[in-house]
């Protein structure tokens, strides 16, 4: 029931929006739909007692490993919560955007949500892949139709680049389906795959490439800044907050179980790349003048850390990475929302055009500051818990890598504070009247910040969710 509701609520609403075009009510309808999804997910959370909950287990095309198996375990549930939690705010952020055809905008967003739910619910590799690729389609159109400058070239670039990974993943999955008798494509049967180590070493990259691009990890990131900067606000939010988490989820669900030896072999390389990205992004972010581009590079930096933590491949690293994934989702939405709110007031997301806004918008400045605290991972915010766990995990792998990872906290402080200064601080140079935080701003930012702080002080519920599956994952893999 839960699975069906999660897929159908956004999907049917999206179809209705697309065909009925209730221009005036579109945003409200979408908001209600996402809130309903959130309700369902929260219900699922409250009813969750552990293990993998399978709701559907049907053959689709069994001859080639495609089975309709839907359900969730702790990690999947975390991702579902994340998706469900972020989307109402993304929809709400749209109230400020004056995009044409609001029905279509919201329909596309809801389609995306459907497919994202699908990704996190799928318990079959091929089914996962299908949803994984599908989620790209609505986003593609969203960016193409409502994007900013150079959207035509950038969107296609983004699409192709992402699909490069996707096809590589498909190739890998097909290869795996051809191996081993016991593997019928379901996550549950991945354990019966027994791929020789020599194969795992190359198969790792075939599978990982998709997620490396999606996240993105350092040398595969070059689609990201332009896309983030060009995309409409909500598009960037979807990309940054949720879409990239698919990469993380995919690594946990596909890469780690299928090619554990490959992971061992490439572990330090990947961590190194991820950390290079983290530092690279952090350094570049400092001098960016466009707020959204800055967020893009900061996201690159954060995500590099996430990936490094994940590949530490111990309970702290993986749990921390997952926890941080959650934190990062909320953070990205907040950051982008603020950039949108500032753009709304100033007319541009160039920080050169801002400055001294705190005089006019003290409430927004205060909210920004709280978001900033999360962004630089001050303790008692959500990010800190994640980062701390990741550092602890990375240290177990290699002290030097841990040192590199920890150094990002300095970079983060440098660019975030500088950004804050350039936007908010300085002399008041604004002649025009400016509204401070509106009800909508509060609606989006206050709950998100509250969640951030609450989970920073009391991370238990989320950590509990991931702890057991992560332990199981690690122990099952170490057995092989």
């Amino acid at each position, binding site marked *: 029931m839960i699975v069906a509701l999660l897929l159908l609520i956004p999907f049917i609403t999206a179809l209705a929006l697309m065909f009925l075009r209730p221009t005036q009510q579109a945003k409200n309808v979408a908001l209600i739909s996402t809130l309903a999804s959130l309700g369902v997910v929260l219900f699922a959370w409250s009813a969750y007692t552990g293990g993998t909950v399978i709701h559907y287990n049907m053959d689709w095309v069994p001859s080639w490993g495609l089975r309709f198996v839907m359900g969730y375990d702790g990690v999947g549930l975390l991702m579902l919560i994340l998706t469900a939690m972020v989307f109402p705010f993304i929809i709400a952020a749209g109230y400020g955007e004056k995009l044409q055809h609001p029905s279509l905008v919201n329909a596309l967003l809801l389609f995306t949500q459907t497919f994202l739910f699908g990704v996190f619910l799928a318990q079959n590799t091929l089914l996962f892949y299908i949803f994984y690729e599908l989620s790209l389609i609505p986003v593609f159109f969203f960016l193409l139709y409502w994007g900013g400058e150079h959207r035509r070239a950038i969107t296609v670039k983004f699409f192709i680049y992402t699909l490069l990974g996707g096809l590589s993943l498909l190739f890998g999955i097909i290869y795996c389906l051809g191996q081993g008798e016991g593997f019928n494509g379901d996550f549950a049967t991945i354990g019966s795959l027994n791929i020789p180590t020599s194969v795992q070493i190359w198969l790792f990259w075939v599978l990982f490439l998709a997620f490396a691009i999606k996240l993105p990890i350092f040398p595969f990131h070059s689609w990201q800044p332009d896309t983030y900067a060009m995309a409409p606000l909500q598009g960037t939010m979807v990309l940054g907050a949720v879409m990239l988490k698919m990469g993380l989820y995919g690594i946990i669900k596909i890469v780690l179980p299928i090619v554990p030896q490959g992971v061992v072999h490439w572990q330090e390389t990947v961590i190194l790349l991820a950390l290079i990205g983290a530092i690279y992004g952090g350094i*570049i972010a400092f001098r960016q003048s466009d707020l959204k581009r800055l967020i893009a590079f900061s996201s690159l930096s954060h995500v590099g850390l996430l990936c490094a933590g994940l590949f530490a491949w111990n*309970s702290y690293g993986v749990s921390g990475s997952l926890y941080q994934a959650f934190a990062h989702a909320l953070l990205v939405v907040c950051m982008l929302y603020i950039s949108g709110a500032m753009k709304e007031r100033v007319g541009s997301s160039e920080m050169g055009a801002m400055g001294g806004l705190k005089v006019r918008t003290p409430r927004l400045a205060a909210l920004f500051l709280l978001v900033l605290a999360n962004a630089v991972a001050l303790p008692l915010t959500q990010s800190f818990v994640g980062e701390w766990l990741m550092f*602890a995990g990375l240290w177990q792998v290699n002290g030097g890598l*841990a*040192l590199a990872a920890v150094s990002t*906290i300095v970079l983060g402080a440098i660019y975030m504070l500088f950004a804050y200064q350039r936007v908010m*601080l300085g002399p008041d140079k604004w002649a025009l009247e400016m509204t401070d935080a509106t009800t909508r701003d509060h609606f989006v930012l206050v709950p998100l910040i509250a969640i951030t702080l609450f989970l920073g*002080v009391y991370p238990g519920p989320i950590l509990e969710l*991931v702890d057991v599956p992560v332990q199981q994952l690690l122990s099952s893999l170490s057995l092989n």
Partner: protein
Amino acid sequence: MRTDLLTILVPVLPLVGAIILASLRRKLSANVAGGLATALIASSFVASVVLFMGFEASTGGRTVHMLDWISVGGMDIPLALRIDALSLTMMLIVTGIGSLIHLYSIGYMHEDERAPTFFAQLNLFSFAMLMLVMGSNFLITFIGWEGVGLCSYLLIGFWYKTPEYNYAARKAFVMNRIGDVGMVLAMVLLFERFGTLEYASIMDMATGGMNDPLMIAATLFLFIGATGKSAQLPLFTWLPDAMAGPTPVSALIHAATMVTAGIFLIVRSSVLFESAPFTKDIILWIGTATALIAASIGLFQNDIKKVLAYSTVSQLGYMFVALGMGAYSAAMFHVTTHAFFKALLFLGAGSVIHALGGEQDIRRMGGLKGSIKITFITFFVGTIAISGLPLMSGFFSKDLIMAYGFQHSPVLFGLLLFGALLTTFYMFRLLFLVFYGTYRGKAHPHESPLTMTIPLMVLAVLSVIGGLLNLPHLFGGHEPMKHFLETAADAIRYEHLGLSATTEWTLMGITTVLVFTTIAMAYGRFAKRATLEGAEADMPFLKRLIAQRWRLDELYAALFERPYGWISAHLFTTVERHVMVPVMNGVGAAALAMGGVVRKLQTGNTSFHLLAMLCGMIVFLLITLMSN
């Protein structure tokens, strides 16, 4: 149970204040906000006092568990507070001096329209500082550690319309963060080693094993953390800049409490440092160097607060010297007395600035002792206290450190003595230039309101009698503070000043004589006629170098700041724009270009097509035949 609640209340009260004030900052007047904030921190103080009274030192300490915080895999880090001698000492300092400074701020800030925000941040700071000192494990301390950093950032940049202030604020935060890297690494390392971060457990486990490389690394990392927060070389340049904040902030955060966090941390983990003598040596020499360099810079500063700031750095250096020699109680003693007299000096400076309507340049002061009497007297007390005139609080604490120094090596004693004389010199220079001679400014000095002068007076008293807290045997005391702290940190039990009474008396005598000589020199130079420094360009090289703060800021700018900006810009414009993106685009472009080339085959010319087809076929035929 009641004490648990009380314990929790200590940090929570200011937090509640911060939240209330922050959310109602538009509705409250400056006085109400200040009153509320003061009341809350004062309540914390009262709670701390009650806890102190009810504390039985012999039990060692008590942990108050509030919440499970981070609990995953094998990691269990609770949100818990620890009450023991060390935390109580710090709590009393933080809440006590904090209350006074809150009170002072009511007067100081009453004209500022953002006073409620100020008090909110001040309360938040108190919360963070209390978390820092009360945390039962490293990670809780780190909450406070980062929290005070954030508040420091906010308060330094409180007057955010001035870009330089914002720069100073950022600088403070970033330099602290550099230290935090060390702190985080140290925690990770300790966790890896002990599987826990609880102070109590680590203290039990970390016995024996000298010169364990892991311990040396951990303690070095901790020390790096401490240098950031406590403004030691090479990370001290932020502190003088931090004077951009309102003066009460300078008093509370950048003199009395936050900057001593590094010392606190090292005392907290003294058991680790005891097993890493190498680190202790490094601490010792860094402390000495910082003490001397900062003191030398203090000689030529003309901003009243900058002088005090460098003096703070210098005094912190002394404390680190003490730590480096394993004289933890001496360090804590100096922390305490320093908190009294440095807070007093800063507040006094604030009172002067307030009296002169914002003037901070001592070259435009002078002769104020008549017009602002209370301020003058209290400032005078502060000055003699810091200079270590006999029987003042600074006398006991500093002499204790110097005595340990002598025990360590006479050279060290000499250096410390030289530093102390420098301190005396620049402090009296400050005193004389501000209060003696004739007034060189244009404002009309007026005495500050009672809210400001009461704290001054209280602190003045404390500065005088503070020495009683740890009165040495020499003066008939029993070093009560040392014995109290022993219960919290075993290492203190073993510290021992093995000098004979004669030696001690001699040292004290030498010091005292030299101090008075120095005062006389200063008097001659600044009190009779105010000798003002000329332009820096006219100074001899060394003097100019010192006056320009050893050009450390410039050095850092050239070494780090500018290269970082350059790298950031060029990573983007060069690497990202000209390598990463083009490589990606290049693949696509190459494919397109290939398409363009291959496309040329399709000439549309039938004969050519036929020929091409034939050739292709022949090639394929050859392939077939050859692979046969």
